[in-house]
């Protein structure tokens, strides 16, 4: 049997064979939830309030939030990394009104629970020019490390509600305010 083993098994392939058993699963992939609420004004800046929920699992993959490596992110660990979370997130989003970039001011962070786990909730205000009519969103969060990431986007403006799913091929969207 010893000499026949080489004939019987290709060691490089046995792992692959085992991986084929992975068919037929339902699974959660990476999602973030971005909700913008526009307060349009003709006299002063248009202010867009934002809430951006980003999964701690995803943030941990990029920023290593689990400092002691015990497999659990505790509040103390997330609190320490809040600046890194904000820097990372806000470098991956651009909001423009009528072609001009809006100034994003973070207003705080909290924790938000979704059905698939805990998310960092990032709150911010985006200050855009007065009487803006067109909003452009350029969203790149996680696409470079995970092209299957999706941003589930909701824009509220007065009575209007617009939704979109942001993906690598639909990363930039324009919506009327």
């Amino acid at each position, binding site marked *: 049997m010893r000499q026949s083993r080489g004939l019987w098994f290709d060691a490089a*392939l046995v792992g692959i064979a085992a991986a084929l058993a992975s068919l037929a699963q*339902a699974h*959660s992939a990476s999602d973030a939830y971005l909700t913008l609420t526009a307060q349009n004004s003709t006299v002063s800046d248009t202010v867009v309030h934002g809430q951006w929920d980003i999964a701690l699992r995803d943030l941990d993959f990029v920023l290593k939030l689990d400092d002691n490596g015990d497999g659990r*992110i505790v509040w103390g660990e997330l*609190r320490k990394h809040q600046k890194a979370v904000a820097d990372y997130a806000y470098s991956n989003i651009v909001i423009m009104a009528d072609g001009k970039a809006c100034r994003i001011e973070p207003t705080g962070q909290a924790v938000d629970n979704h059905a*698939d786990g805990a998310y960092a*909730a990032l709150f911010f205000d985006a200050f855009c020019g007065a009487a803006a009519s067109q909003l452009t969103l350029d969203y790149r969060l996680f696409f470079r490390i995970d*092209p299957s990431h999706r941003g589930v986007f909701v824009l509220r403006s007065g009575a209007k509600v617009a939704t979109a799913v942001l993906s690598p091929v639909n990363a930039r969207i324009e919506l009327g305010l």
Partner: protein
Amino acid sequence: MGRVSAAALAILAMPLGSAATVATPGAAPAPAPPFQAPYTPTNDDTVLQEVPSASDPVVRQMRLLRGKLDADAGSVVIAEQLAQTYIDFGRQIGDAHYAGYAEAVLAPWLLQPSPPAVVLVEYATILQYRHQFADARRELKRALHLDPHNAQAWLTLATVDMVQGDYETAGHDCTQVAVSGGYALVIACTANLRSYIGQAQQSLSLLTQIDGQARAMPAGFRSWLQGLLAETSERLGDWAQAEVHYRKALSLTPEDNFLMVAYADFLLDRKRPAEVLTLLENASQSDTAFLRIALAKSALASPDLPLYTWIMGARFAALKERGSDYFGREQVRFALYLQHDPHAALDLAQRNWEVQRAPWDARVLLEAAQAAGQPQAAFAALAFLRKTGLQDPIIEPLARRIDAELKSAALAP
């Protein structure tokens, strides 16, 4: 040492409140969402989320390979290793994020006009994992055009053809594995195929034969064989042997999501739901595992069933919200047995049948058609079962009952 585990259980401990961010599932009258609004914990030690532990050898391996790739970004060898490690890990813990990470690693090569065969095969594995079978098949054919004897490509193609019920083509794929993959893989491939076409006894003999030779092989391979043996024993109604094989498989690869879920289905069928809860205690992060937990809660008439049903519904709703067009057998079982909506279940089962034709896909279609009082909706599945000759002590009597209903309906004035 749960790798990724009970995040949802942490959620269950949260006070009830309003959920601004999670959509309510469609049909069932849902209880109040179990989530509170965004909050700021008061204690630094509050556990928010479980993640793969840095002390896990596979996590260390992934980080090591990631570092190597960062230092040598052009190395297709390292990229392929890292992608494979991500895919295996994601599969093991039932987490689709890792398929995305693997895809990102392969992306620079996929953008080339003619990517290397190894990259195409890895990419096909990701597509197959996401149930994009036509896309997976296309990439595998491209890979085989470049490297006609690529055993991994043939084996993956055989798997795709089997899951879609094209057994004739799968048989041809299996024989092609022989050229460079070795006899054991051909036999395993063929044995797997035979378990679907009324030759489960031969399948069992072949698998037992390989298993006898496999003692020195890696645990992952032996576990895969044990999983196939368990499944084939189930085809033959040999519950005792099936259980022996499931337990052996799990002793070789503990916490393997695919195996745990298959064993959980076995236990649910055997009316042993309490054991499902113990088995999947640390696996609730995986959607497939979570469904079995909820089904076990239902079988036990557990008072917290509405909460589990709500969370499962929210997870499926999130899947839909992100634009996923995957409707699998899990969603059929959710609609049928937890939302008690046989018409929605039948619609999902029919759509699933267009994509997948494994025994469980036939079973959920038959169960949904029967529950919805629409035996004619199972016509395609009945014809398929007749043609293929699938042996299964649960599916066969079910098919006979529906067949009889169809015949009596045809005779009715």
